[in-house]
């Protein structure tokens, strides 16, 4: 069966520090991968998505970046965190058809202090 792992679960980082969140998927190949951010009381904001290794599309300009070094690995990074980067970050994957749902990781609660 397919599983998605995302870590860490919680993270407290000072302003200006770097960030690296990792997400891996098991039990499927060629998944479409996504990073969403959910601010308190807000919906899921799509940050990045990827349809293949090395292929990254950015939805929102910001100081975050994403990379997909392997088929089932998706990484969210920042060189210097801002206070506004605080939020709940979710990795997800889907198949490449409309009839498959999105599977989400457990999420990472990031607090920038």
């Amino acid at each position, binding site marked *: 069966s397919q599983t998605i792992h*995302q870590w860490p679960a919680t993270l407290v980082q000072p302003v200006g520090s770097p960030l690296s969140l990792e997400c891996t998927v098991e039990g499927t190949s060629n998944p*479409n991968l*996504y990073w*969403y951010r959910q601010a308190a*009381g*807000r*919906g*899921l904001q*799509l940050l990045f*998505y990827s349809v293949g290794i090395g292929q990254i599309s950015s939805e929102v300009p910001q100081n975050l970046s994403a990379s997909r070094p392997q088929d089932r690995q998706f990484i969210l990074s920042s060189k210097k965190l801002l206070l506004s980067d605080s939020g*709940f970050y*979710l990795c*997800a994957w*889907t*198949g*490449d*058809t*409309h*009839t498959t*749902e*999105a*599977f*989400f*990781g*457990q*999420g990472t*609660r990031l607090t920038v202090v």
Partner: protein
Amino acid sequence: SQKIEQNSEALNIQEGKTATLTCNYTNYSPAYLQWYRQDPGRGPVFLLLIRENEKEKRKERLKVTFDTTLKQSLFHITASQPADSATYLCALQSGGSYIPTFGRGTSLIVHP
């Protein structure tokens, strides 16, 4: 611009009643609509998918309707239970994109 609207106010109901949640959208022509459940501090979990040519979909105590004329989907939970308390998100996919776009979600609180 495209917009997905879900009631930001929490829905409070008594156990055993039917909960009805609404998802409205504008400037969008979704071919597929999904509903997810999200518990605090967790990622959303898929519940149901309905296509634009389907009027209604059922799964156990859940029912989803999709009215492309009204640009609205209704999500019903019959015989609600306190364990149904969570935030429910709708997500839309257009015919040309598989990327789900999510609404903000509506919190449901079922009182025993």
